[in-house]
Each structure stands twice: as structure tokens, then as C-alpha cells.
């Protein structure tokens, strides 16, 4: 039987991790905090992929590996599959999760973001949205960790246009 723990253990741990790096260590340097959080995710993805691919044959191409992330990997970690996969067949893949678990309880107060956008220091992006994006460096790191362990170097970014839908954009390095 697969061992389990309460979901709130993981949720609170991620919240604390993000708070620690973006608040305590690098309050004025979000890009450094982001890099650390991504590195933690990378490590987790790297190790998880070892465990989840143990008994499978080698993936024949990039698409096979991406499909593994969409189906098996996502089910193991988030108990659902990716809802939509798009690709331009030239190394870019977009994975859309319509109810991304780690954002399902996040909300951005629309009134506060309007006020924030007037602030010249953060043009076009509210502080709240910035805070949310901090949480996304972790899953981006996980995806990059899995793929690089499968021999596919890539860059991963996330896009949240309407919560809790989240799209992960994977660009495979040629």
C-alpha cells in the first residue's frame, strides 16, 4: 500500500517554504528567492522521477516523456491528470491543469490588485499576483527536474490567467 500523509502537511510546508525564501531571506530580491524555490522543486522532481519510472521501458521520444508527466506523474502527485496538452511539434509543450491543486485555495483580491498596479514599482503586475507566482516556481522546478532526469533539458514557466487554472509551458532545449 502506498503510504500517505494529510494533504495539509504538504500545503503548510510549501507555504512556509515560500514564505521563508521570499519573505525572510530574499525579501528584496524575488528573483533569487525564485531560483532557490525552483531548485528545491528540481531536486524533488529529480528524485520522484527515479521512483516513478523504475519499472517502465525507456521513453522513445519527448512526447512520450511529456505524456508520462501529464498522466502517471500528475496522478501520483496531484491525484488527477493534466486536462489539456498542446504542442507546436517544435519542442514547446503547454500543459494545462484546470484546477491546479496547489492554487485551488488561493485567491487574489481584485480590488487590491487594481490599487497595486498604480504603483510604478510593479508595473502591470500586482503584488498579489507576484506572490502567487512564487508558489509556481516549485511545480515548475519539479517538472524540469523530472524531464532533465529523463534526459530532456528544458525551461519551464507557468501562466495563470484565470485561477485556479494553470498552464505550464515547457520549452525543450535543442
Amino acid at each position, binding site marked *: 500500500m*502506498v*503510504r*500517505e*500523509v*494529510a*494533504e*495539509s*502537511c*504538504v500545503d*503548510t*510546508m*510549501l507555504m*512556509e*517554504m515560500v*514564505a*521563508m525564501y521570499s519573505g525572510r*531571506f530574499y525579501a528584496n530580491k524575488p528573483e533569487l528567492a525564485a531560483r*532557490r524555490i525552483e*531548485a*528545491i*522543486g528540481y*531536486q*524533488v522532481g529529480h*528524485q*520522484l522521477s527515479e*521512483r516513478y519510472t523504475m519499472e517502465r521501458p525507456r521513453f522513445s521520444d519527448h512526447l512520450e516523456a511529456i505524456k508520462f508527466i501529464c498522466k502517471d506523474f500528475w496522478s*501520483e*502527485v496531484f*491525484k488527477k491528470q493534466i486536462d489539456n496538452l498542446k504542442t507546436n511539434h517544435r519542442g514547446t509543450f503547454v500543459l494545462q491543469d484546470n484546477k491546479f491543486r496547489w492554487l485551488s485555495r488561493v485567491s487574489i483580491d481584485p480590488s487590491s490588485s487594481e490599487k497595486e498596479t498604480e504603483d510604478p514599482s510593479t508595473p502591470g503586475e500586482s503584488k498579489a499576483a507576484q506572490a502567487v507566482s512564487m508558489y509556481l516556481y516549485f511545480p515548475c522546478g519539479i517538472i524540469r527536474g523530472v524531464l532533465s532526469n529523463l534526459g530532456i533539458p528544458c525551461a519551464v514557466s507557468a501562466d495563470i490567467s484565470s485561477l485556479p487554472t494553470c498552464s505550464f509551458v515547457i520549452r525543450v532545449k535543442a
Partner: protein
Amino acid sequence: MAPVTPRSGDAIFSSIDRVNAELFTLTYGAIVRQLLTDLEEVEEVNNLLDQMGYNIGIRLIDEFLAKSGVSICVDFKETVEMIAKVGFKMFLGVTASVTSWDADGTCCSIILEDNPLAEFVELPDTCQGLYYCNVLSGVIRGALEMVSMKTEVTWTRDVLRGDDAYELQVKLLKQVAEEYLYKDDE
């Protein structure tokens, strides 16, 4: 309304949302690893893990009270028993036992035989001063503080340091009386 009866840790654990423990274990491991690279002193890492745990504990106690349906514990002894029997089961899926009470009931040990946090973990020689599971002691301290008990929680045995079990000593420092902001007649 019928009084809410306390539920067993097993019953709560089977009814709440759960995730794969590997994700939890590896994520914690990756955080500790990153902290060790970012900070120079192992002691600083211990402190930060404890602080993280404290912040987590003050949140988890709410969930614990909401979902367990426990009523007021009469004393420190009952409270610690509740954490060990119901709390650990409900969040980590493991049971802990409470032993070594002192005569006045203010100090005891929580013993964990099975610890999902430390699965797959081996400490290298460079990290000998590290209390790897320090987040747990912080969680207990934070949770108890929210129910008016100031405690000191320290590791007395740690499998990762060569002992045969995980043992946390919980010492009650002060029981803070609840203060109400408003009087009834105001």
C-alpha cells in the same frame, strides 16, 4: 444539537484529503538540503526548521480542533496524549506513545517508532549537529502555544543519530490563562 464525539485518529485520517507521503518526505528533504547549502551553520538550519515548524503548528492546531471534535482537555497530560494519539495519526498517519511523565505532570516524552519525515534519509558526516526532524518539535510547540501552553520541545533520541527511536521531550513552561478582549456585559 448532539454533542460532537471525539473521533479516533484513524477515522479522521481516512476521511481527510491525503497525498502520497513520498512527495512530502522528498520535499522536506529538498528544503533541508537547500537550507544547508544556503546557510553556513548547521545550528542556523536547526533554528529555521524549528521556526518553520512553529508557523505550521499554529495553523495545524485549527485544523486539528475543527476535524477531531475533541472537547477541552483538562490538563497538560491529557493534551499531550491527544496530540500523540490523535494528532500524529491524523496528519502523518503514524501513532506516537507518551511515556516518562515526571511527578508533577509537566514533562514527558513522545516516542515515535515510525517517522515518515526521515524515510530515505541518512545524515552525512558534515551534518552531525543537524536535528533533521526539527520541524516536528516546532509544530508541537506552535500547536500547544495556541492552546495556551508554553512549552519547550527538545529531541532526546533520534534514529538518524544512531538511537533506536525518535523521542521528543515536551516540557510545560507556563500555562497562560485565556484572556478575553471583551467582558460579557459590554
